[in-house]
């Protein structure tokens, strides 16, 4: 056996979190990277075994497999929802990347993105577009605050405008920071937590987010109930007070009721358990078609599409095929990173389907 003499144990992971996994393998079928590679190393169970070997000093900290797998994981947390043992994989991954991607080990792009988001979001978009936010003076805790994902603010200003039409009394402060999710998923959870706390202070009362990833991260950091993703917020509000729902007409496309599919946001689905609301909202305005891969990661996964372009496209490809086969007119996204990934994929595959954020779809029905 090629076993190295064990190095000193390391304190990288929360011991109890790591001990929770019993290697039953129930998570294997849920994992998108495992279903592509069929290799234990790129399964949740295999990754947890690697984390254990790192913690217990059985693997060198610079082991190439550790480095590779910390990057190849999508962070989609599909493994968490099926794990009967309640393993908190998302937290383990954050702790892993904090360690694995420290200092010189940071993948160049991940480091660049972290810095970019901190300095100015517009830097990422190359200063392409102006902000769509309305400035409305001091924060009012009685009004819902719309939190604009920092990528979204610059890349997709139309989404913010659509939200304002759907929630007229919303407060959309312009000087908001970043929620920190990108940092947390890219190996800097300390800075991330600080950013989330600052954002929470700046926005008293309910925070409504148009990005599933931001919503789930803030929900985790600020405590349950403070943050709602847009579909969650609208579904609850329109049900509690039907008069707050604007009249919605049926969206048509090519002479028929539009056929609309959805791509769940992983953090929203697996982190917050929100799945019914976006489907119900779409069904109010169009024919909702469930893609077989609706709940599977799109491969966008934060910075993943840039760090792991090849795997990212493999993960996406079933969705594109299904969207074509099911003859969709629109494909709804709930998260800005998914949105960008889906747009790029649709363009590459030359599909007819139009990728649209939920807020924009609902705006079409106004």
């Amino acid at each position: 056996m090629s076993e190295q003499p064990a190095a000193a144990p390391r304190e990288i992971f929360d011991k109890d979190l790591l001990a929770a996994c019993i290697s039953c393998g129930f998570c294997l079928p849920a994992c998108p990277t495992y279903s592509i590679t069929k290799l234990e190393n790129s399964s949740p169970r295999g990754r947890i075994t690697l984390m254990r070997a790192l913690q217990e000093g059985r693997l060198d900290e610079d082991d190439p497999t550790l480095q590779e797998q910390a990057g190849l994981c999508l962070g989609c947390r599909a493994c968490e929802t099926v794990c009967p043992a309640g393993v908190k994989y998302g937290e383990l991954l954050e702790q892993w990347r904090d360690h694995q991607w420290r200092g010189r080990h940071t993948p160049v792009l991940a480091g660049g993105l972290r810095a970019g988001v901190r300095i100015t979001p517009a830097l990422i978009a190359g200063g392409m577009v102006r902000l769509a936010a309305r400035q409305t003076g001091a924060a009012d805790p009685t009004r819902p605050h719309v939190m604009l994902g920092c990528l979204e603010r610059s890349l997709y200003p139309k989404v913010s405008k659509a939200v304002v039409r759907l929630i007229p009394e919303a407060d959309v402060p312009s000087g908001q920071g970043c929620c920190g999710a990108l940092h947390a998923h890219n190996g800097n959870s300390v800075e991330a937590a600080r950013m989330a706390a600052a954002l929470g202070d700046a926005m008293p009362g309910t925070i409504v987010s148009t990005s599933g990833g931001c919503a789930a991260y803030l929900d985790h950091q600020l405590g349950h109930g403070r943050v709602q993703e847009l579909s969650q917020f609208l579904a609850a509000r329109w049900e509690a007070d039907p008069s707050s729902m604007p009249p919605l007409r049926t969206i048509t496309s090519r002479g028929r009721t539009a056929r609309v599919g959805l791509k769940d946001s992983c953090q929203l689905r697996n982190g917050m358990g929100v799945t019914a609301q976006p489907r119900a909202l779409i069904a109010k305005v169009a024919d909702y078609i469930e893609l077989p891969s609706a709940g599977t990661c799109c491969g966008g996964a934060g910075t993943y599409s840039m760090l792991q372009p090849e795997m990212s496209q493999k993960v996406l490809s079933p969705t594109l095929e299904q969207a074509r086969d099911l003859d969709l007119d629109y494909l709804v996204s709930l998260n800005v990173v998914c949105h960008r990934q889906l747009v790029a994929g649709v363009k590459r595959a030359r599909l007819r389907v139009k990728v649209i954020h939920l807020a924009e779809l609902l705006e079409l029905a106004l």
Partner: protein
Amino acid sequence: MPGQLATPSHTGYAVRTTTLPSAAGRPIPPDVLDRLRSIVGGDHVLVTDGDVEPFARDATPLFRARPGCVVLPATTGEVSAILRMATEHGIPVTPRGAGSNLAAATIPEHGGIVLVLTRMTALKEISGDELLAVVEAGVTTAELADACAAKGLLYAPDPGSRTVSTVAGNVAMCAGGLRGLKYGVTRNYVLGLEAVLPTGEVIRTGGRLWKDVAGYDLTRLLTGSEGTLAVITEVTVALLPMPAVARTGVAYFDSLADASRAVAGVIHDGIVPATLEFLDNRCINAVEDFAKLGLDRQAGALLLFGDDGTAEAVERSLSLMASTCERIGARGVTMARDIAESDALLTARRCSLPALARLAPITMLEDATVPRPRLAEMVDRIDAIAVRHNVVCATFGHAGDGNLHPTIVFDPDDGDARHRAEAAFSDVFDAAIELGGTITGEHGVGAAKRPYLERRLGADQMALLRRLKAAFDPAGILNPGKLGS
């Protein structure tokens, strides 16, 4: 079965007790690695520490050993070339499917090659006319069952790990499951095998025939051989027509012993239902924490009963089982309203083991099995053993099969906790054997129960196992240290 207890060997044959291959425990030589790469392609030979680490363990706690390398063949020809070479060089080979076994059966305790069959995933044939399916080794149980269901056919073996485990892994362990009482276990469905001997020959045992007595029944011998006699590359299984209706109900009792009495009552009534599973209070709570089905957390035990067949037969059998449970003193009986509710209950039951992992860092389970009429007695003995050794034990199992999974949970940092758990299980094995049962009903022997095997088989059978092993595997390369060693 007292006749099978340990007796001195009268056969007089020299019995080889160590079957370790010559290169056991040594690193794989570079020229061997090169040849492996030329057989399966460079991408399918893993050698670095990080790449092989995930294959150092399976679903069994406390056992781990890193292999020298991991090889992933895609064809029977590749498997044959690998084995021939391993025999030539005396290198240990441990076959592996999904690594979900609970007996440390895939731990490469003597290093060497871990041979992973998960790339062989062709569903070659599903025939409704012949009622059989032919699959490659690495197809998962659920993939096979789902593909059959889509054609109106039932693949009956239903291990709790079905979404993960491979069909060849099921055959190699003779896996049981949640339908054992009425339908039996994997062995009852294996018609034929394609397998590669450690020396490289490819054999086909059995086949597509329902009747075939030409020669020793090697199909049955390989079934449950735990990767120690040959590597299975293809499996032909028998199918059944899908029953028209399947329904499930739940009865709650004050204790597991009461639930056991209900099981005896059901069988006494002349019903042989598809499913009779039970969980004790700790299991109910762990499962409910995950599945959130609204189970009765106060109950001492839960009995899951289910049957399939024609609508009238199922109706009759479920109402009979319900009334038997009530007669025995059930605190409550409910029926699943629809298929979704039935499936949710069965899924929750399959999660019992991993859900118990919520209780403590180490979850050690056993697999003792007793004749059905002794079930309640065995349950009482397990309780007493747990008290005697001061361990926290949760018990669930395939009640209808007399198959119990007492599970001890503990923190390895808690002094002699592991020692107490092992001592308790040793007593559990003795109790099972005393009641006419066995040390393992379905999870197998592997490395974990190898030290206890002789208690069940006796010295003569142990010696015969070794001779059988040597006949298949003269160099002793296949899964050394497990069955037949």
